[in-house]
């Protein structure tokens, strides 16, 4: 009975092990020592866990090793995304410490679920077989469905969670069907072996089964990344979910979606590039324009940020269409900058609310610039960076993306992209205009700034500024990390 024991090296999956261990510990702590109203210690335990996982991702930066019969890999691409996810998780937990108690969702499971979702994202980024990517996506999605519906009291949160769950389950079904068709036509689920098999059998390029598989995969990933035809759920879910989870979803889930997207479409189905370029081109244009145009008409800041996140997904799709080496590196760069900008903006939204009064309407921001100068300044930085104004990270991100598109001769795409970011300048600056040039109708008083959230804002501002002023070394890091992928 020839049983071969798979080669087990735990160093490869060290971050995942640490995150799941800490998640389980927080889960048990939350149940064995429940101190209602004072569950912040759980938040700090999760922070420690994230930092330890962060430290363990770096040693495996250099070499790209496979583990567990190449189900998972520790290559540069995976590590870069793990760094992004851990930063996002760190900032989300920081925000949640003050906010969770305010909206009565501050029990152990909340922090445990955030860490389980991060684990799911890391698996999606580092998985090199369809099964690992699917399991990562499933773990992340279930954790996010529950987190979105955690504010049981208010009807909107439950409605958003249910809507997200139903559409998510439906999209995962499509994804799974696509994976099944690809497995059927290539006989293997390891991404490298799929690519090798397609290279070895050129007539596969015209086989309708694999093309239908790719279409279904596009739908599945498209939903997770909220591209246009599948973006209907985004505004309602972002508005209904607790704000800290909205930040987590807007940045983490989107980055994980793109990680899976790139991993499957570039390393496994690279040969089919001419087929899916046309669809992606359309998706990119549609996502950008719809995201920006509809965002103009929004009055609720969370819905506006939801539509702006759709627009940003459009910009990233532009780099996806470019497909060259600079394009993929610019996606990594852009996702990091986008994470800092978005979490910063949502933190400011949280800081401006207090128990029972969330102030999510843009009109509530009237006169904030003068009343809370630091808050106003940081919000302005985030808005300008999202709009792509030069000195900030957002501009550099867009610059790299559009230069990659131009290098790949997609001139029209770059032009539409620039036009869209011009439109976006309007609704981003509208928030600043409200803050500095409008008289507040009613006073927003009694705001208590929890120290953790202030630290989160400072980190985000630093992130946006650093990537704006010294973008080159992070871009070099990104380029080095995707060498093995293409």
């Amino acid at each position, binding site marked *: 009975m020839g049983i071969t024991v798979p080669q087990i090296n735990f160093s490869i999956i060290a971050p995942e092990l640490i995150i799941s261990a800490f998640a389980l510990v927080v889960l048990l702590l939350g149940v064995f020592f429940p101190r209602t109203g004072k569950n912040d210690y759980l938040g700090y335990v999760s922070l420690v866990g994230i930092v330890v996982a962060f430290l363990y991702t770096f040693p495996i930066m250099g070499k790209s090793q496979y583990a567990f019969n190449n*189900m998972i890999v520790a290559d540069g691409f995976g590590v870069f995304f793990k760094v992004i996810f851990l930063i996002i998780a760190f900032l989300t937990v920081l925000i949640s410490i003050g906010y969770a108690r305010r909206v009565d969702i501050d029990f152990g499971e909340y922090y445990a679920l955030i860490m389980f979702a991060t684990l799911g994202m890391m698996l999606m980024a580092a998985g090199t077989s369809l099964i690992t990517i699917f399991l990562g996506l499933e*773990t992340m999605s279930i954790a996010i469905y*529950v987190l979105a519906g955690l504010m049981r009291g208010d009807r909107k949160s439950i409605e958003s969670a249910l809507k997200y769950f139903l559409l998510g389950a439906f999209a995962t079904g499509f994804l799974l069907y696509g994976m099944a068709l690809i497995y059927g*036509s290539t006989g293997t689920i390891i991404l490298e072996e799929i690519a090798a098999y397609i290279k070895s059998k050129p007539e596969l390029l015209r086989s309708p*089964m694999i093309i239908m598989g790719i279409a279904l995969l596009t739908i599945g990933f498209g939903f997770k990344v909220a591209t246009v035809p599948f973006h209907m759920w985004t505004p309602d879910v972002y508005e209904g979910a607790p704000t800290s989870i909205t930040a987590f979803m807007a940045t983490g889930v989107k980055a994980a979606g793109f990680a899976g997207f790139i991993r499957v479409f570039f390393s496994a189905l690279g040969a089919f590039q001419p087929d899916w370029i046309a669809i992606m081109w359309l998706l990119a244009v549609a996502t950008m324009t719809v995201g920006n145009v509809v965002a103009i008409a929004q009055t609720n800041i969370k819905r506006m940020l939801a539509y702006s996140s759709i627009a940003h997904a459009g910009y990233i799709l532009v780099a996806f269409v470019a497909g060259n080496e600079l394009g993929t590196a610019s996606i990594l760069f852009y996702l990091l900058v986008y994470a800092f900008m978005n979490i910063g903006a949502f933190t400011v939204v949280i800081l401006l609310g207090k128990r029972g009064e969330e102030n999510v309407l843009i009109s509530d921001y009237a006169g904030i610039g003068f009343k809370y100068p630091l808050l106003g300044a940081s919000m302005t930085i985030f808005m300008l960076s999202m709009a792509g104004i030069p000195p900030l990270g957002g501009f550099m991100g867009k610059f790299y993306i559009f230069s990659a598109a131009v290098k790949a001769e997609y001139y029209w795409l770059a032009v539409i992209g620039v036009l869209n970011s011009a439109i976006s300048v309007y609704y981003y600056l509208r928030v600043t205009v409200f803050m500095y040039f409008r008289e507040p109708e009613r006073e927003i008083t009694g705001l208590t700034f929890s120290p953790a959230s202030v630290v989160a804002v400072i980190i985000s501002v630093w992130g946006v500024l650093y990537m704006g002023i010294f973008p080159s070394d992070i871009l070099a890091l990104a380029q080095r990390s995707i060498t093995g992928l293409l």
Partner: protein
Amino acid sequence: MAENVVMLFQWLVFLGIALVCIFASIMVISNKNPVHCALWMVLTFLATAGLYVMLHSQFIAIVQVIVYAGAIMMLILFVVMLLDLEVELRSRLKFLYSKAIGGFFAVLLMLGIFYAVITRVLKGNVGSFTPEKVSAMGNVKAVGKVLFTDYLFPFEVASILLVVGIVGAVIMSKRREARKE
């Protein structure tokens, strides 16, 4: 002679199971009484298990019966009984505009997949476990051998997935007693 009788018989059994499966799934979506839908769904799962047996994968067939027909449908039946559906039963199935669009896209997708599967069935490279080898060694042992050596990592992640499932279900359904004491 005996050989093609067996083949003919196998083809007949396959046709029977496939028709039962399609008919039951149509009944699932076209039925108004949710408990009847659940029962038709159980029949669909049993027919799918029959298809798995025809494909020589007996372990997956019986897992389908135990997990899907036995556990998941019991959960759905409990949920259906949890909601008081008197009102639901009386409401007529009104024709919604979105149902038409949905139906159209569903048919489009089905034709696409039907075309994809029928036109050129490409045999992927045959895995190392051929039906003869599997039936010699016993289906469950074959699954076990592969599951715990090649697919060890997804197996361990599956347990994390189950934990997330439990935590989610328990939180969403437990009354919030945090505020009482």
